[in-house]
């Protein structure tokens, strides 16, 4: 079974500073990888996804993530954060079953991002 680790429960960043949120996964092959963002009281919004190909993927809101197979990592980055980026961020992995089917995603426990003025 796959697993996801987000080592940082909370991260505080000054507005305008760069951001990197860490995600490590455990799976025998290359899974599908995702980052979601959740604002307080809201559902989850997909930020970006990796299936195959170019290991640097671009997402919405100026976010990007890099897949590093050797480190089993999929870290999320943003060059300059805005106060509106304050939220909970979740890394998730999924696998394609034999025959092309799908079951649920496995989520990390989340990283709470705080933006200081």
């Amino acid at each position: 079974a796959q697993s996801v680790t987000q080592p940082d429960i909370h991260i505080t960043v000054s507005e305008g500073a760069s951001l990197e949120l860490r995600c490590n996964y455990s799976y025998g092959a290359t899974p599908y990888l995702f980052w979601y963002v959740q604002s307080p009281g809201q559902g989850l919004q997909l930020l970006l996804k990796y299936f195959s190909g170019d290991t640097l993927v671009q997402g919405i809101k100026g976010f990007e993530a890099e897949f590093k197979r050797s480190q089993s990592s999929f870290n999320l980055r943003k060059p300059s954060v805005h106060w509106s980026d304050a939220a909970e961020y979740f890394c998730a992995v999924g696998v394609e079953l034999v025959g092309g089917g799908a079951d649920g995603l496995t989520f990390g426990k989340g990283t709470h991002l705080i933006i200081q003025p």
Partner: protein
Amino acid sequence: DAGITQSPRHKVTETGTPVTLRCHQTENHRYMYWYRQDPGHGLRLIHYSYGVKDTDKGEVSDGYSVSRSKTEDFLLTLESATSSQTSVYFCAISAGAREQYFGPGTRLTVT
């Protein structure tokens, strides 16, 4: 935004009562999922469906049942609610083993 609605959005119920949560989609996606979100645990899969009348268990399925009689609706039932089932419940949909899109959530409190 993906067309996913959940009802009710908030519910307070007493221990031992049955509760049914509804997820409705307008995207005609094959796969539908129920997750629960608890502080410190992220989201955990309860059950999922890969077609009408086709369902399977997830990581935390004990105490929950599901049904899917139409492509657009996926019901989650707590046969006898317990305080440990106080949580926020999210429905999600997908076209396959790719990205999932989430509903707004249902906050359930069991007293």
